[in-house]
């Protein structure tokens, strides 16, 4: 499946990751799903990282998620995935990411190298676990 993301939103994620460095940032990708299953991200919803004990971990708590979900639904949007940053690590899922991943959602990871945003990639959990597969990420430039 394809995740389509406007360039402005990718820049926003990169800025969020760079400003959180050396800690991780996290947030919600909100948008719509087309009949073929492709996802269009229409806006971001930065989430509160509830893990304050370890800068290399993030957690979006269920209460926060329920509230975000109902807000987004009232706008006619749904949660299609999440983004987080990997400070000084490749934009591929860690074992911890895979262990905690949910199926179907897109997991966009942006690498932050010494405070500067680098490459980004999006991943989806295999239906059988224990792997995440890269999915195609289309960055849409402004028209």
């Amino acid at each position, binding site marked *: 499946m394809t995740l389509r993301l406007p360039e402005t939103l990718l820049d926003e994620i990169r800025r969020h990751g760079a400003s959180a460095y050396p800690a991780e940032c996290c947030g919600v990708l909100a948008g719509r799903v087309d009949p073929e299953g492709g996802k269009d991200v229409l806006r971001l919803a930065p989430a509160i990282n509830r893990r304050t004990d370890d800068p290399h971990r*993030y957690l979006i708590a269920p209460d926060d998620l329920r509230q975000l979900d109902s807000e987004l639904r009232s706008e006619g949007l749904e949660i299609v995935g999440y983004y987080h940053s990997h400070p*000084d*690590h490749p934009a591929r899922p860690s074992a911890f*990411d895979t262990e905690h991943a949910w199926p*179907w959602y897109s997991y966009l990871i942006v690498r932050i190298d010494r405070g500067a945003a680098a490459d980004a990639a999006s991943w989806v959990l295999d239906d059988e*676990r*224990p792997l995440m597969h890269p999915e195609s990420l289309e960055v849409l430039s402004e028209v």
Partner: protein
Amino acid sequence: MPVTVTIPTPLRGFTGGRDAVELEGATVGEVIDELLSAHGGLKRHLVQDDGRLRNFVNLYLNDTDIRQLESTSTPVREGDILTIVPSIAGGSPAVETELPKLSHAEVLRYSRHLLLPEVGVEGQRKLKAARVLTIGAGGLGSPLSLYLAAAGVGTIGIVDFDVVDLTNLQRQIVHGTSTLGRSKLESAKARLTDLNPNLNVETYETRLSSENALEILGEYDIVVDGTDNFPTRYLVNDACVLLDKPNVYGSIFRFEGQASVFYAKEGPCYRCLYSEPPPPGLVPSCAEGGVLGVLPGIIGSIQALETIKWIIGAGDSLVGRLVLFDALKLRFRELKLRKDPSCPLCGEHPTIRELIDYEAFCGIGAAPAYQGPEVIVEELRQERTDKGEELVLIDVREPHEWEIAHINGARLIPLGQLPDRLSELDGHSEIVTYCHKGSRSMKALEILRGAGFGKVRSLAGGIDAWAERVEEGMARY
């Protein structure tokens, strides 16, 4: 009592697209059991192996988290709504996470480790947290995975796609007679979890390839290479360098073995040592050249040892050193390895930045091997009856193979001697060459044809096919 369970979007692929299901049950736990038995695909996403809910799965009964109620024993009433709510967690790799604790049974099991200050409780907990991937469940993979499992490595991944064959058991000690014909993964998993039930075995029944290597290797801390072929060895090396992972290398041939640890961040990689693979066919595999059964036990144990040392951070690793072992002389030698500044993968100006086509790199399939005329075993049997002595049958295997079994009436001329013994053959006679399975025989054909012999053919499938389909009772190897 019918209760409505609302299914979040990510799980609807497992409930036929439905966003809610009506289920019966007296407690939250019973309703969830019903849900999992009706939609089995949900199981691995919602519960752990021990049947408990995964820690990132939250259940809300109406509007309250069941953890604030009586957890899964919370009674439910008709009309209640049970909602599955995700927690979303993750984080970057290589971070010191809190190490898992040891149970009393584990403390007892690993007591001989715990007595070593170099291991101790902390080292044992590191082993428990470790994720090690072994490529291959064969000669090297057997001792290696057994020792890692026994040592308490928490997660062992294994990549293999073969089935257990009788010829494996002379050295592949993780398998047994009772698992003949079963997949090596299934066989190894059963033996390893019998040895250590705390172990988590993750299996990949696939041929490792440029398409899947980064994904599979990416899930592990350390990769141990127990492969028997060059394309996979280069693939494992390259993927480890691209992923910044240590590659614990071992290889065996007849009576000799090698071991090292390739870790490009601190030392050389396999390409620094061997920039080019040998020409295809030059180095015989174990199936062609034979191997002493204990040898992989020694080299595989060295690989297990290096892996364990790496995890607990003890001693000096084999990074930058190549150990050579000669079983007949019983001698270990050590070579210093240097990082090659011009290495195309880990040197100063790398040109390889992604995985390539390793079959082509190793020359496999690039230049097709010589293809001469063949005869199948059933035809040969008929022709021998019809033509008798006129048909000359030449066995091009080695004398020790001839001793195991040969076709009556054949002449033994080992392939290596053939060019010098052409004068023994009559250029006008009809010749059929054979070997074990057909490849050396084809090389013999090439030599004979090149020397002007016109009426030569090779026995397709070699003596192995002959023993299978014509001469029942003949020994196979």
